């Protein structure tokens, strides 16, 4: 016990055991969070209606994937959806949205969490009339392209020179993200779209 070698062996074995357990859990988790896995929907979910409902059994709100609901009036094929998502993520990384916003609660805390942004009532209540848009996705695109023109309060989002293409891809990305099962985060999210 008071010999270093005893504890050296202890350090090596406890680390090794934990690392092995972590590897197994990682393999399982990765299969659950691939697009189309147990917890994360396929990218073509952007063609569907997405709701959010409390599930008493899990004591948490879960996304509900409904029937067809086209985005920008288009139906995206699987390949198109893949490409769109890739572009959306690239736009998000290149502008470092995560250094103001959070995604699933990770990032910076200067601006609202984007996990369920697609389902937020604010688009219908405020930004659709403000941007004079007929659809939610149109309002989002207009906001993203010119956020400094449509502020809701004192802290504003800067113009990040997003193109129309970038903005559409981001909207699609946010729609897909809102369909991910996040074990009930953010807590008690109040959406108007809980069919």
């Amino acid at each position, binding site marked *: 016990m*008071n*010999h*270093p070698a005893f*504890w*050296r062996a*202890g*350090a090596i074995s*406890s*680390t090794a055991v*934990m690392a092995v357990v972590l590897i197994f*859990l*990682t393999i*399982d*988790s990765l299969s*659950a*969070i*691939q*697009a189309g896995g*147990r*917890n*994360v929907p396929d990218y073509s979910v952007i063609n569907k209606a997405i709701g959010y409902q409390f599930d008493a059994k899990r004591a948490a709100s879960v996304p509900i994937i409904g029937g067809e609901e086209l985005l920008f009036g288009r139906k995206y094929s699987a390949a198109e959806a893949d490409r769109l*998502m890739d572009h959306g*993520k*690239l*736009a998000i*990384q*290149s*502008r*470092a949205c*995560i*250094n*103001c916003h959070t995604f*699933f609660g*990770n*990032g910076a*805390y*200067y601006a*609202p*969490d984007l996990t369920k*942004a697609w389902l*937020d009532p*604010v688009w219908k209540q405020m930004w659709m009339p403000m941007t004079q848009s007929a659809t939610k996705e149109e309002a989002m695109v207009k906001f993203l392209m010119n956020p400094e023109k449509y502020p809701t*309060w*004192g*802290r504003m989002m800067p*113009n990040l*020179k*997003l*193109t129309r293409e970038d903005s559409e*891809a981001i909207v699609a*990305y946010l729609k897909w*993200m809102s369909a991910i*099962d*996040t*074990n009930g*985060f*953010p*807590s008690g*999210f*109040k959406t108007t779209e809980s069919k």
Partner: protein
Amino acid sequence: MYRSQQLALKYFIAAIALFGIMIVFGLLASAQYVHMGFLFQVLDFSITKTLHIDTMILWLLMGFMGCIYWFLPQELERDVEGIKLAEIMFYILCTAIATVAAVFIFVQYGGSNEFSMWFINQGRKYVEAPRWAAIGIVLVVLVFSYNIVATAIKAKKITGIMGVLMIDLVPLFALYLIAFPRITNMSVDLFWWWWLVHLWVEGTWEVLIGCIMALALMQLLGTARRIVETWLYIEVALVLGTGILGLGHHYFWIGTPEYWLAIGGLFSALEPLPLLGMVVHAVYDAGTHHMKTTNKPALYWMMAEAFGNFLGAGVFGFMMTLPQINLFSHGTQWTVSHGHFAFWGAYACGVLSVVYVALQKARGLEEMNGIRWKWSFGLLNFGMIGMVGALLISGIAQAFYERAIGGSTIQAFIDAQSNLWFLQGMNARLVFGVLFAIGYAVLVYDLLTIGGKHRTKQAAVLRPA
């Protein structure tokens, strides 16, 4: 002094300078919370904050490297192999950091294409640096590892601490490679990203600072090698035994399966145990030496490291690590409160301790003392505790108003940010931040002048060695 120790001093100078730059951008970012529209579309929050946290990672890493370059030749009783290369890498690293900082400030962001990832900003928290610079960091770390391994081989000697250090550098380096790929799926992206962030700060870094503190302890208090090595192994067993699966406390809400709620909560709840052990050990060591040493500032910073690590990581982490709590506290100023306290306590204080250890030797001082280090020690720690207290209040208010009663929508976010408790917390954070900055100024002044007149005379005697 060994040549490697001269390089260590350069690393310390760079680290302390970056520490200052970090404070400047931290203050700017917190002013942007308090004063709406401050530097809007000039130097937005995302930029100031990126510079703040990236310089934080860099100054700590450079501080660690300085510590190792300082102790390595002493430990192996010979100068470091490949030191010339290491010196060149130091300047390359500094140039790269300056270039990236200039790009962040003046270019800020690029279009939605791979060029931006390679040359402007990768847009992932803590690892924003564009890929070319990330490759530079890889090279620096490779040379650093080469220095250590080659020196050990040449010296035909490997101590227990060196063994832990060398093994630790392998995962530390491997995890950094997560900085490169661009992953479309946000859940998968964050899954790996947390391997990098958590397994660094609650795993490999914790082991690294353990090695550094062990080396410092032997020098500072003359503790026997057998003791510090045994203790180091125990710490490693406990830290990695709990911390590896503690990773699960970041897998509650990112799309990962439900079993992480139990695994992450359980193992991360055990993480404070080794930190408690460190505090008890620090009290033991200081007590058996009656706080007597020729290097008071180093000893005080070392004590601050043990206590800060326990309070910042152990206590503040434990408050929000159970999933039922984390559901509300996750991604609020509450997190920021813990993040500051933990990084400060666990790493910043440790680096500062070794800087004082090194200065004593470099300047050939029999005794390190005076009034200035006390002021800087007091102001920095008081400022930090004030900041994390203020952030805790803001964070709790945010969890309460935005999440628990607000329904987590954008409107709920805005309501919480406009709440009086929240705003007062943000104001107080800025005020304490200024105190902290004053403490930093005193620190720099002290580091430059400590030893006063004695130093040149005595250092001259030592230098030829």
